[in-house]
């Protein structure tokens, strides 16, 4: 079994590299054929043409596309994404600075989405066609049809503007000092350093952005979990568990949940990547200093180097999260692996 898992890891890793190579070619070509003069954008509208031309030459602007790609890929292998044409700092530095904020937000949104979505789904399945199921349905549909920025603005109006009980922007109150960086997650860094004031303040700042970003996923997770759980509820092993007198709560969240999670977990892997990529509107509204917002600014300002770096980073995140999901699904439901073996 262990050898099979190792083989699976190597296989996934190899295919991931191919995917990332293809992605790098795609994003490079797309960013280079995008309309807009990046050199002009970088130096400003009033910069002399000579300075702009020098920068174009530095960027290999006039070389064939495959030559440009060669230079670019060579640098990528050395961890050099080039300098941002807007900030004039290494793109890698900007990504490292901005990524943890989005990662933290996406992680909290992911946890919220998973826990709330699965809980609502399980309860909806258990109390099918009752008011509990209907309430779950309302929550699901609301989450699915309402864009994240609408939830964000509504939440801000109610909890920040009218009630003034939650902060409207940023990761931390201005009076508090950001703890020394260990993981880049303010919550985790504060906990590690036993700075509970900062921890609770950071959590408070995360509430609205997390709910805004994660609500869509709650809806989707709830519906899929509901379907999956309901299907398994009719199985013999559940009937046996009930006949043994095992408490219902234990059956629902222990015996029934694990075999029902293959579908939701597969979706979660894709959703985590989406959370990272789609966080830009929420980050914009809450002035969250994240990677997604940095990416959006890069696109609007035609910052080619930053765009390429960001998309590749997102590609790596997507690929990694899918690999992790594959393993989790395999762990939760070994039958998937057995079916594959039988087919071979």
């Amino acid at each position: 079994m262990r050898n099979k898992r190792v083989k699976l890891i190597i296989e996934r890793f190899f295919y991931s590299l191919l995917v990332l190579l293809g992605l790098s070619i795609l994003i490079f070509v797309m960013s280079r054929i995008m309309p807009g003069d990046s050199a002009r954008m970088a130096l400003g509208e009033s910069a002399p043409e000579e300075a702009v031309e020098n920068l174009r030459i530095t960027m290999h602007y006039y070389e064939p596309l495959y030559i440009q790609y060669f230079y670019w890929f060579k640098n990528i292998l050395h961890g050099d994404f080039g300098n941002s044409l807007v900030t004039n700092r290494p793109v890698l530095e900007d990504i490292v600075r901005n990524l943890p904020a989005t990662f933290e937000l996406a992680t909290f949104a992911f946890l919220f989405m998973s826990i709330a979505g699965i809980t609502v789904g399980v309860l909806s399945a258990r109390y099918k066609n009752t008011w509990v199921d209907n309430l779950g349905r309302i929550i699901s549909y609301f989450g699915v049809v309402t864009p994240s920025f609408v939830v964000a603005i509504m939440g801000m109006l109610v909890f920040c503007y009218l009630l003034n009980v939650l902060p409207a922007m940023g990761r931390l109150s201005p009076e508090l000092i950001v703890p020394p960086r260990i993981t880049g997650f303010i919550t985790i860094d504060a906990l590690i350093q036993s700075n509970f004031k900062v921890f609770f303040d950071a959590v408070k700042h995360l509430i609205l952005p997390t709910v805004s970003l994660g609500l869509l996923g709650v809806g989707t997770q709830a519906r899929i979990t509901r379907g999956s759980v309901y299907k398994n509820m009719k199985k013999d092993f559940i009937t046996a568990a009930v006949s043994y007198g095992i408490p219902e709560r234990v059956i629902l969240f222990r015996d029934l949940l694990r075999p029902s999670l293959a579908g939701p977990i597969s979706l979660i892997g894709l959703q985590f990547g989406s959370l990272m990529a789609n966080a830009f509107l929420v980050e914009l509204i809450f002035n969250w200093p994240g990677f997604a917002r940095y990416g959006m600014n890069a696109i609007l300002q035609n910052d080619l180097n930053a765009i390429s770096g960001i998309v590749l980073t997102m590609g790596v995140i997507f690929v990694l999260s899918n690999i992790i999901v594959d393993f989790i699904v395999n762990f939760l439901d070994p039958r998937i692996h057995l079916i594959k073996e039988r087919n071979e």
Partner: protein
Amino acid sequence: MLNRKIKVLAISLCLMGILLSLTGLGIAGSILRYASPWPVKIDPGIGSDGQALTAQVNLLDPLVFPDTKGNIVPHLAESWDVSPDGLTYTFYLRPGVKFHDGRELTAEDVKFSMDRLLTMGGGSAYRWSGCVQETEVVDKYTVVFHLKTVYGPFFSTLPLFFIVNKGLIMENIKSGEYGEMGDYGKAYVSINDVGSGPYIIKNYQTGEYLLMEKNPNYFLDVGTAPDEFKMVGSNQPVLVKTLMKNREIEMNSKWGAPDLYEALAKIEGVEIAKWQNTGFLYSYRMNTKKPPLDDIHVRKALSWALDYDAAMQLVPGSVQAIGPVPGHMLSDKNAFQYHRDLEKAKLELKQSKYYGHFDEYPMEVIWDSSPVMEKYAMLLASNAADIGLNLNVGETTWSLLCETVSKIETTPHIRINPMAAEIPDPAGLLKQQYHSETTGTFNQLEWLLDPVFDKMIEETIATLDEEERLEKCREALRYIVDLAPSIFVVECPEIHAYQAAYMDWPSAKGESMPYVEYSNSVRLIKIDDEKRKELLKK
């Protein structure tokens, strides 16, 4: 059972922690917080937009400073001389001014700042790249600018020339495209303090905010100024409204939509400040080389067709523009102004060589950046339809616009253009918009290429006497209005919402300086922290 109790206890503790932290945390000292567009480019060699200048005006110092009438007063330079031929400007620096790192500001720093600006070519370099030949250090406190040609408005451009710390930048040079100067410190200056100004960078979170603290060793009195100045990176309307209501910001930027200011004005203690001398002038820029706009009659027809009253309604407080230069900068009693007259518009069209064939020449009016610009674009399209001209309204982005205007064929027919007069220099403004050397840039979509105008404006700029120069400007302005390369729509005031209940802002009381973003010189603003706390209790 025990596990369940532990879980309940843990959850309760967490909730308590959150609830405890719901109580407001106080701010020590007075602070002025400004909701600003983002990103902020603090390097004067790179950034010259509104938010960049706001930061630079507070972090750096210029040689001279403007007063509320636009007169130039000493600042880093105590005095100056101008040679009779207008080609040499000598500045005598104030001794003992220190940069934030403790180094003394000398003539070497002034030379370095100009050389750096002109070599990099970004930021505000365009103001001097055509006129400054060389900067010479005579002694420790004397610096001379040698000009290539006489440039009458040279002096009025200097409040936007900021001095940077040569020693500190040279210590942090990296490899780059400027030969032995490497990257000229671009990477370093983009996030670090190289100034001598009234405020020092305390914390710069590039994705979130720029926090500055008062410079206790500033060479001018800053005793009554706020202890801190924070530029918060958000222009999002709901967030700005929330922050303003909760007294978490003291003022917002000038880029809000009219309905945002209406909503902010309803908040207790918040007032709307307006002033005209750094407002926007909206005009429709027309490509005079692209059919049918290469025919002056078509351009004049559109000028007659526009509903100027409706245009003024789009931004409250607007007045009709009299030409490409704001009225407060260049008053002209003889200036001609169009008004809506559909009969005259149709008469002009009949005189056009394209009459009866306009369908063969589809036109577009494009907009970018803000919803107000979209409304102006739609207004023109609607008014053009009244005289039988079909205009398609299209949206573009700034980066795409910069590329499309580089060639006549790809430059759009019409673009609605907001122009802020950054300095009180009508001649420079006219040159920037219509001289042949600015064709192919976003400054000029008209492709005017008029040698008569080029000669006229070059002679104007070379005139040292201010009154004489202004009179020549008026002639040049009338010439342009007659050619009708653009439709001059409205002059809008610069508008800000601010916490009038506890903020004493000279610009809001009619004392604004006619230099863009100088109204955000925080050392001139006072914050009454006690009044702020009283308001918060309500």
